[in-house]
C-alpha cells in the first residue's frame, strides 16, 4: 500500500478518535489491506500523535486469549501503544462523552528492569528482567462501528487503545505466582466478569516474550524501564455513565474508576 494511502487512513482513524465518532472499518473499502500495512497505519497514527505533542506510556498486547485468537483466526497476539494522555489515576473518573463505546478489561502490566531482546524468551527470561508487575484496567474503544473489525482493522486502530486506569500495587515477580492472579470486575457492586492471569497465553510473561519476538522482527527491542500491558485476564465489559467499576485482583489493591457523562 502506498505511503499517501497509509497516511490518509491513519488520519481518518486518528480523527475518528478525536471526534469520538465510530467509522466504517477500513477493510470494507480496502479489502487488500495486509497485517503489515495495518502496522504501518498504526505507526503513522503514533507519529501523528507524537507530532501533536503526546508521548508514549508503553506498549500493550491484544488478542492474548485463546478465545479471541480463535475468533480472529490468528496464532499470534497483536500490539499497540498506550499514550500518556490515556492514563487515569486509580479511583479517578472516565467521561463517556469523551469516548465512543468503551469497554473495560482487567490486565496485568510489567515494568522491566533489563532490556529484553530475542525470538524465544522463556517465562524465566522475562520474569528475570521484570522489576514489578502491577494491576491495571484497560479501556478499549474501537473506532469502528459496533466494535466489529477484522485483524488488520484493529491493528491499524492502535488495537483499540483508549484509556488505562493504573493500579498502585507494585509486586515483585519472585514474590507471587504471576500466572495465577484471579480478578473480578464489579460494576456497581455486581460481579460482571472473572478471569485468571494464565488466560493470557498460558502465562502473562509469555505475552512479553511474544512482544519481544514481534519487535525483534522489526529490528526493535524492549528496554529497561519500559512498561507493558500484557493483556486481559477477563472478557471486556461495557459500562455507562453513573457506573462505579471496581476490580479485585488477588493479593493486590483494587483498581477502580467512576464513569461520568
Amino acid at each position, binding site marked *: 500500500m502506498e505511503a499517501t494511502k497509509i497516511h490518509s487512513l491513519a488520519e481518518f482513524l486518528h480523527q475518528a478518535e478525536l471526534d469520538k465518532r465510530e467509522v466504517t472499518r477500513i477493510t470494507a473499502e480496502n479489502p487488500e489491506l495486509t497485517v503489515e500495512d495495518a502496522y504501518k497505519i498504526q505507526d503513522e497514527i503514533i507519529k501523528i500523535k507524537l507530532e501533536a505533542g503526546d508521548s508514549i506510556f508503553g506498549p500493550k498486547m491484544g488478542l492474548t486469549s485463546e478465545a479471541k485468537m480463535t475468533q480472529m483466526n490468528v496464532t499470534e497476539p497483536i500490539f499497540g501503544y498506550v499514550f*500518556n494522555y490515556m*492514563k487515569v*489515576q*486509580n479511583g479517578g473518573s472516565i467521561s463517556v462523552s469523551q469516548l465512543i463505546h468503551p469497554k473495560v478489561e482487567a490486565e496485568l502490566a510489567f515494568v522491566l528492569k533489563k532490556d529484553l531482546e530475542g525470538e524465544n524468551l522463556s517465562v524465566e527470561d522475562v520474569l528475570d528482567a521484570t522489576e*514489578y508487575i*502491577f494491576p491495571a484496567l484497560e479501556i478499549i474503544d474501537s473506532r469502528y462501528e459496533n466494535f466489529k473489525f477484522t485483524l488488520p482493522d484493529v491493528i491499524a486502530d492502535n488495537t483499540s487503545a483508549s484509556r488505562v486506569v493504573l493500579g*498502585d500495587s507494585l509486586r*515483585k515477580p519472585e514474590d507471587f505466582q504471576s500466572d495465577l492472579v484471579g480478578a473480578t470486575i464489579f460494576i456497581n457492586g455486581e460481579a460482571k466478569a472473572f478471569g485468571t492471569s494464565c488466560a493470557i497465553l498460558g502465562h502473562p510473561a509469555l505475552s512479553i516474550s511474544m512482544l519481544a519476538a514481534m519487535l525483534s522482527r522489526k529490528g526493535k527491542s524492549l528496554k529497561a524501564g519500559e*512498561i507493558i500491558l500484557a493483556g486481559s485476564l477477563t472478557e471486556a465489559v461495557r459500562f455507562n455513565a453513573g457506573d462505579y467499576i471496581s476490580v479485585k485482583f488477588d493479593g493486590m489493591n483494587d483498581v477502580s474508576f467512576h464513569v461520568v457523562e
Partner: protein
Amino acid sequence: MTVQSSKKTEEFALLLRNAEQKREGISPLSADNPDLTIDEAYQIQLINIQDKLNQGQVITGKKIGLTSKAMQDLLGVNQPDYGHLLNGMEYENNSVIPANILCQPKIEAEIAFKLKKDLTGPNITSLDVLLATEYIVPAFEIVDSRVQDWKITIEDTVADNASSGLYVLGEQKFAVSEVDLAQLGMGLYKNGKLVNTGVGAAALGHPANCVAWLATKLAEYDIPLKAEEIILSGALSAAVAVNPGDQFTARFAGLGEVSVSFS
C-alpha cells in the same frame, strides 16, 4: 524558581519572616486583606524560600498539606496545598529538639517518598510516583504556624510555607513494593501513650496520590519534582500539639518507627 513580587507580597513576606525569627505569631494576613489570592500566597511563600536560599539553605524537597478530608473541610477547600522543605528543617531520628526554636508546633506522622527520577507532568498518576520512588520512610512532620493561634485560611497557610516547621525521617528505608501504602496502619504515641491512629488511605486515598497531585499541580508551572527530593506526602491523622518535655513515637505497619523528643 521565578519569583514575581509586588509591594504587597514583599510586605507580607517580611511580616512572616519576622514572625518566624521572633517566634511570635502575627494576626492572619487574610483577616486584613480578604482579597489575598492563593496565587499571591504562593508568591509570598516563594519570596521567603528565595530569602532562605540566599542565606545558603538548600531545598531538600516538598511537603503536601491539607490532604485529609477533615482538614480540607476545616479550611473550606477541596484541594491540598504544598510547601518547601529546606536542609535546615531536617532532624535525625531520635533527635531532641529545643521547643523554643518553634512558635506553636504540632506533630504529624506521614510517609516520606525519596525520588530517584524527575516527575514531569502533565497527568501524573500514583503509579508514576511509585515507579519514580527510590524508597519510602516513616516520617514526622512538625508543623508550625507563624499566624497567631493557628487561625489560618488556605491563603494564610500557603503564604506561610504551608505551615512547615521541621521534619524527622525514620532510618530504615523500604521499597514501594514492600507495603500496601493505602492500608497500612499507624499509631502515634506521646510519652508512651497512644494519642492518635491513622491509615495510609487518609491521605487522599493513598499517600502516592498526594505526590501525584503535587507533581500534576507543579506541571502547570513547568516545575518538575526532582530526583533526590524528599516528599512528605501528608498527615495520616490529626496533628497533636507539642510541649517541651514531650517524646513522640509513631509506629507504622511494616515500616518500623520514627521518634523525636522536645526539650
